């Protein structure tokens, strides 16, 4: 009897019993997002989600997790993504680009690692959560780094670097030098020249129809993500003819060789679109400089790299001449830069310190199976 009283008292003291009685939600009301205010010091203050090592990610109302068909590779980091749309508002459907988000929306992406990525849910450690807030003046990006106790994440505008060791999904031991980007580095990937007069503006990258059109289990079995968005009232429309990018889970499950030859181009172009086109597109920062366009809808083979010399590749050419030599991946700078782990040469510039073996194998096969093209003899170089 005494013991029961003690337990009750301690439950009251931490407020657990009270909150359990009043509501089943562990949150104190709906998300407390004020995108026009300074970002809070602690991620938990936004009340978007909680992390419980036992339960996993627990979401507040109007915060909906999602996954991408072909995700961006970041040193094998596992990512938990979610969208928050304010009550009474919806995202505007777009068949090509990123959905239009109402002001007040927030996108959160949490990066975590497990000691053995073949069992990604065992002993996982949260590293950072990136928060994109849609203010009345545009998107703002804020990095939060998780504390050692894994109880909360702290606003960390200047980022960090972390040395990590883990077993990758293929069972290979990996040593990564993982970069938590500083606030200003977010623009390296997220800025596109789509503002009025071509000005550079921060934009989300992932949440476009083609990337979101896939299934996810929201607790009642597999469900199409976009249909779920519509159901819970955060998306305004869903046309039947919704495009879908290649589902990279097929490669993760069965390997690159299992993909039918007819789908290799689609898979590779989806991969390039997700991993490269945020910079290498007509609106992207590197695209403008290099004129290499890897967006899925680029139809210009030369701008895709075919027999194209790089702009200013620095150490990234490996003595090769052309970005992409059809039929010859080993002579294609595009492949070599994705495959290498050499600092100064590897692509993408941020977010990768180890090779994505599945991704580079896909690009290898894509180039190898292209109809060979003679890019021409070496012409005399400049010099006197």
């Amino acid at each position, binding site marked *: 009897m005494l013991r029961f009283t003690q337990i009750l008292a301690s439950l009251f003291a931490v407020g657990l019993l009270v909150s359990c009685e009043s509501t089943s939600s562990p949150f104190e009301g709906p998300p407390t997002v004020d995108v026009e205010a*300074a970002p809070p010091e602690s991620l938990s203050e936004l009340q978007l989600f909680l992390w419980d090592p036992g339960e996993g990610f627990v979401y507040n109302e109007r915060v909906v997790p999602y996954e991408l068909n072909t995700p961006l590779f970041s040193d094998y980091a596992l990512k938990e993504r979610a969208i928050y749309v304010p009550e009474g508002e919806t995202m505007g459907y777009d068949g090509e680009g990123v959905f239009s988000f109402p002001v007040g929306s927030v996108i959160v992406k949490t990066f975590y690692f497990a000691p053995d990525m073949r069992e990604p849910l065992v002993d996982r450690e949260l590293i950072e959560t990136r928060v994109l807030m849609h203010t009345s003046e545009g998107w703002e990006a804020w990095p939060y780094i998780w504390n050692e106790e894994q109880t909360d994440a702290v606003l960390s505008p200047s980022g960090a670097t972390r040395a990590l060791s883990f077993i990758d999904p293929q069972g290979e031991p990996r040593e990564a030098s993982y970069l938590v980007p500083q606030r200003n580095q977010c623009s390296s990937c997220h800025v596109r020249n789509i503002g009025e007069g071509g000005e550079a503006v921060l934009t989300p990258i992932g949440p476009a129809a083609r990337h979101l059109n896939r299934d996810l289990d929201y607790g009642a079995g597999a469900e199409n993500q976009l249909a779920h968005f519509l159901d819970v009232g955060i998306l305004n429309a869903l046309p039947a003819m919704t495009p879908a990018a290649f589902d990279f889970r097929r490669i993760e499950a069965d390997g690159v060789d299992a993909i039918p030859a007819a789908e290799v181009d689609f898979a590779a172009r989806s991969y390039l679109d997700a991993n490269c086109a945020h910079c290498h597109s007509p609106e992207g920062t590197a695209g403008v400089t290099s004129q290499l366009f890897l967006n899925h809808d680029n139809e210009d083979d030369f701008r895709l790299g075919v027999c194209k010399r790089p702009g200013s590749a*620095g*150490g990234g050419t490996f003595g090769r001449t052309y970005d992409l030599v059809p039929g010859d991946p080993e002579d294609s700078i595009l492949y070599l830069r994705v495959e290498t782990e050499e600092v100064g040469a590897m692509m993408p510039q941020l977010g990768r310190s180890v090779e994505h073996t599945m991704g580079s194998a896909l690009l290898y096969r894509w180039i190898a199976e292209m109809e060979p093209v003679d890019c021409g003899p070496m012409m005399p170089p400049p010099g*006197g």
Partner: protein
Amino acid sequence: MRKTTWILMVALAFGLAACDDGAPADGDAGPGDAGSSGFENADCDDFDTANCVRVEGGDAQGLLDAVNTIDSDTTIVLGAGTFELSNQVTIRGVNTLNLVGQGMDETILAFTSATSQINGVDVIADGFLVQDLTVLDAPKDGIRVEDSDGVTFRRIKATWSEPGLSTNGAYGIYPVRSLNVLVEDSVAERSSDAGLYVGQCINVVVRNNIVRENVAGLEIENTQYADVYGNLAENNTAGIVAFDLPGNPVVGRDVRLRDNMILNNNHENFAPGGTVALIPPGTGTFALASRRIEITGNTYTGNQTGDIAVLSGLAIEEASVWELETSTLVGDWEDLGLLEGATPGTVTNFRTENVVISGNTHTDGGLAPEPHGDFGVLIRVLFTEDPVPSVIYDSIGEEFSTDPTMHTNVNRICVGGNTGGTGVASLDVPSQLLSPMSPILVVADAPFAPFDCTTIEGDPIVVPTF
């Protein structure tokens, strides 16, 4: 308002002293007060900005916190000392920003331990000044500024610890796609591509800098209205060069390379790849796919392969690659008379034309051409006995003739009034590629037809003043 609050919060949290109206808030270490803080020469009151943040010498975290939390119209003053950085100094979302150290030998941003593929200082900001500091061992580029209007580099150094390593970063001082750029009194050395690179910029002055031990010392690429003078280019693979690359929406024009010292640019080519890897050591200057260029009053000494080469863009890429959609071009180009491309709605910029080379002094050039790359081999084969002529012209686009009076000069390449040197070699490159023994025209005495002209055709070259 929101941002101001935020900045104050961070400044307090990290103990940074913010100082308004140019007065040091904490009262210590003002000019002349050489304490342990490392603030000696430059301080807040030297700069006319609304905000100022002082970061103690060596406080790398403080520097990163500062650049990620500042508002526009801010001066960041860095104390003397070495800042060991593992991530780049990224500046975004603000305008009118000064990043100022205590001198290039005093304030050093060292990226020696960086393990990511980062630049040293990476900036997009209108009205950006970087002054009095060194960037050491950046994995990629030393100081990169892009998409900015009003950029000043003054008394800064970009360098790497070891000379001649192909693993050194690509570019030292790197303004790109920017307007109104001034680079002065600075040093760029040991980069594995170009030490001081100005690309896709409009209105540029590059003066009184030193570039040495780079693959390419000083490059002006796809740039309009540039005055490049008083610079010393020594012991690079190639000294000072001007060219266009294909496919770029800025067509280069009105570039003046004048009164520079271009000495002994014979450094081994240590580029890990790219177009510059093909440049033969011993190259003074080349103009490639360029128009409206003046190369005047320069001193060329001891460049062993040759002093000046004038080359068509067709020497590196076929004509179709050089097509530019006119709707995408930026800057001034309508008056250039660019050739139309085969595709409707395009022009091409491979042609090198309207180049004046005069008043230069040539000493000991072309005495030992390096057979490096196809072009180097060609030069070496052609000039086994005599020194390589001071100016080499590939004659692409001309009616070639061994009789000078019959040789056309439709590209209007003017060579005259130079001192020393050994004249012009007009190479029949297309024929040379087929047969190394085909004709070559060497004219030893100036002035000589058909290159007998000394002024730009049309309006005078336009360059900005700063």
